[in-house]
């Protein structure tokens, strides 16, 4: 704990507030655990598509589940996180209601999706060995999002590992589906382990009561 005389410099209160919010968001390791589970599920569904015989019921279920529930899994993680936190962790992490995303944030999100789609469909198919570029690009881009989004040392390590895995897979010449299954599976395990350790340490802290 710190008293008011040992606070960090307050050059820009908004930047400071965003850092504090980000730190509070990641203090219990839950975001990483939820992301880890999501990546492992996606990895498993991708693996099932090349492990199961084409046209089999299992294969069809895996394809449909990934197509329908894949985006829902990714988009639904914030809501799942919020529910778990309010149901089981509220006494430790407290309650916060964030502001809805502003026009600027939504605009940046849409721009990001358009840029990624442009690179994916416009640039990558024209490159030699597009599978390799796609794996490397996913690793580096995903790693950058993890590192910049978390803004904590463990997220930097996590992002670097994802980027390195993507590049190693790209150089190894592995097929695209296998590469994605390995990349997402590895990222899922890393997230689960780091989130699990942080969560255990957080839960071991004595619960302070009273105000």
């Amino acid at each position, binding site marked *: 704990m710190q008293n*008011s005389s040992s606070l960090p410099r307050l050059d820009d209160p908004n930047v*400071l*507030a965003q850092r504090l919010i980000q730190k509070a968001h990641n203090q219990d390791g839950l975001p990483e655990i939820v992301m880890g589970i999501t990546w492992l599920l996606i990895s498993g569904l991708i693996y099932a598509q090349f492990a199961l015989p084409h046209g089999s019921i299992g294969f069809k279920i895996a394809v449909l589940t990934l197509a329908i529930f894949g985006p829902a899994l990714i988009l639904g993680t914030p809501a799942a996180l919020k529910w778990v936190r309010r149901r089981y962790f*509220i006494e430790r992490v*407290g*309650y916060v209601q964030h502001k809805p995303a502003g026009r600027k944030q939504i605009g940046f999100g849409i721009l990001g999706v358009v840029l990624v789609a442009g690179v994916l469909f416009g640039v990558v198919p024209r490159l030699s060995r597009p599978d390799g570029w796609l794996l490397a690009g996913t690793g580096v881009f995903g790693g950058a999002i993890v590192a910049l989004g978390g803004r904590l040392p463990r997220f930097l390590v996590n992002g670097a590992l994802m980027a390195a895995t993507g590049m190693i897979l790209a150089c190894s010449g592995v097929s695209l589906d296998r590469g994605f299954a390995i990349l997402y599976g590895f990222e899922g395990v890393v997230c689960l382990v780091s989130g699990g350790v942080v969560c255990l340490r957080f839960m071991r802290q004595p619960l*302070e009561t009273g105000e």
Partner: protein
Amino acid sequence: MSAKIQRLGEVDRIIHEPARLMVVALLAAVKEADFQYLHQSTGLTKGNLSVHLSKLEEAGYIAIQKTFRGKYPLTICRLTDLGREVFANYRKVIRAAL
């Protein structure tokens, strides 16, 4: 001395205190938050935070609502319109002077 720097003397002293500035900045960035969240995210001791919240409430910059979520008591804090206005003005003065 330029007029902008001279305006530093006009900054709101209630908000200017570092711990209170941190609390106000946090509340400005969210819709509302409870005592435990502010305690966890600012790193202030509970006693210290409680005193600063009282001062901000007395000034009319934040509104405090005591409620329950199941068995868990919630002391929900949110920035008032006056608090938002004073904070925006504070940022404007500091930015202009620095």
